[in-house]
């Protein structure tokens, strides 16, 4: 069915089905030397085996795909599909510059990490989790179930179909796309949506409440109420931006967490919160 949608012949269809299946494991072996290289090789093994018959070519092929690689796994299949198309051409056309295969892979892994992470790791995960959490009240198990189903309802089609999309587009198109600025537009687009969501989450999911009440001339002034009038969620915003700033100064997340915990405990103790 997918095969026909993409207009592939039976042979290519079979191969791509394998690539799409194996692309799921791109992130299965993450190492400090080459990150996802081994998962990438695992995905490309059937391609290399099919395209090349001599031992020599095959070994060169394996090596070609056992190189440092790191991208968001949900959308990364696109790159495996694209590389498959290139390998196919390389096998046919002896003039084909095989270095371009690695070049394309390396140049795309960054943008796809950005796009995929901001769509799936931040935006979509948080939205579906919001729904899941609202159902999980009182310990209802439907919460996590609905979360998992909803999340993967959008993610799984990407995992399965993007390799095909990459295969069909071919490297030529991608280069054009790069040049024409479409790739950078998509990255920008993903960032915009991602940033808007993170902004919204800052307002709704970080909470800092001042409990202190100020009295003057007999009349009370609840600091938190005043802040809410002036600028609701101001403190969560400032806290988040402060964390961001400190992280940018290479202070470790763990340090920040420790500081916040101390802050919470001390603040509660002296009655600020």
């Amino acid at each position, binding site marked *: 069915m997918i095969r026909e949608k993409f207009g592939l012949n039976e042979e290519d269809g079979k191969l791509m089905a394998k690539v799409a299946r194996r692309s799921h494991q791109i992130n299965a072996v993450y190492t400090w030397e080459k990150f996802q290289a081994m998962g990438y090789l*695992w995905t490309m093994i059937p391609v290399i085996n099919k395209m090349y018959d001599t031992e020599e070519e095959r070994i060169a092929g394996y090596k070609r795909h056992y190189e440092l690689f790191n991208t968001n796994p949900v959308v990364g299949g696109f790159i495996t599909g694209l590389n498959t198309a290139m390998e196919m051409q390389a096998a046919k056309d002896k003039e084909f510059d095989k270095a371009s295969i690695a070049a394309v892979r390396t140049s795309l892994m960054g943008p796809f990490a950005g796009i995929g992470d901001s769509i799936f790791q931040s935006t979509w995960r948080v939205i579906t989790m919001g729904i899941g959490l609202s159902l999980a009240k009182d310990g209802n198990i439907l*919460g996590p179930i609905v979360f998992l189903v909803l999340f993967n309802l959008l993610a799984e089609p990407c995992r399965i179909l993007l390799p095909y999309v990459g295969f069909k587009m071919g490297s030529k198109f991608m280069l054009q796309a790069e040049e024409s600025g*479409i790739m950078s537009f998509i990255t*920008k687009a993903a960032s*915009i949506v991602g940033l808007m969501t993170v902004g919204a989450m800052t*307002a709704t999911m970080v909470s800092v409440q001042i409990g202190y009440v100020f009295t003057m001339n007999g009349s009370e002034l609840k600091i938190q109420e005043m802040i809410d009038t002036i600028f609701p969620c101001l403190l969560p915003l400032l806290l*988040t931006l402060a964390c961001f700033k400190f992280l940018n100064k290479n202070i470790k997340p763990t340090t920040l967490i420790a500081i916040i915990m101390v802050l919470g405990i001390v603040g509660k103790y002296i009655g600020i919160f």
Partner: protein
Amino acid sequence: MIVQALLVGVTVCLLDFLDVWLCNPMITRPLVVGTAMGIALGDITTGVQVGASLELVFMGVMAIGGTVPPDSIHGTAVGAAYAIILGKGIETAIALAVPASIVCQMLFVPGIGIRSLFTPYVERQVEKGNWKALQRIFPVVSISYEIFNGTICGLAVFLGADVMSAFIDSLPQTLLDGMGVAANMLGAVGFGLLLKMMWQKKLAVYFFLGFIMAAYCGMPLMSIALLGVIIVIVLFFEGEFSKRHTVSETSPTVNEGEEELFDD
């Protein structure tokens, strides 16, 4: 206790493995991990509740290339396990999960390092072109790290339960309350990490746009994301891009789907 420790260890190992093997289907989010602990240890309701609470704490934490964030997965696993086994409620879970996540985070780099033990073997097979060996060893390399995680969590439960029980009883109430306050603030670290990745001076304004829509207009997250998509599409057709190149005809992206859906 040993049975429970074993159950915890195996569950953690399994969740970890499935998450990488099935391409990050999000089964290692605290909500799911907590629930899984509940199922394994026979108290689903508490498991889900603890998971939900810790999810709020770790909402902003996510696995993004290069960064080593607090380890929400194993922190949650240990916290939830204690909460269920000791029966001391959700506050306990939070009070334990956060420190546990910091400890586990320190084990992240050496843990992943375990896989590197296989590197020489893998490289030899690549040189030889022995793809069958590569395929056989692949899941093994993957699971080596997950077994490490399972062992740690199991051990923590096995060794720590009694100590923890006594320890928690000794904590003053103010401290627990303060932990609760801090838990609500911890998201800031996660979102800070995200911002570090996504921040671009030219686009920073959209962060504030999302903030305002949520803080002032009370719009739900989904609608803000949709609005983001709409803004992006409008920018595509009206903005800078459409002017530099008139690519709209050859553009294969945004509208393809709609075209197929509605134009036939």
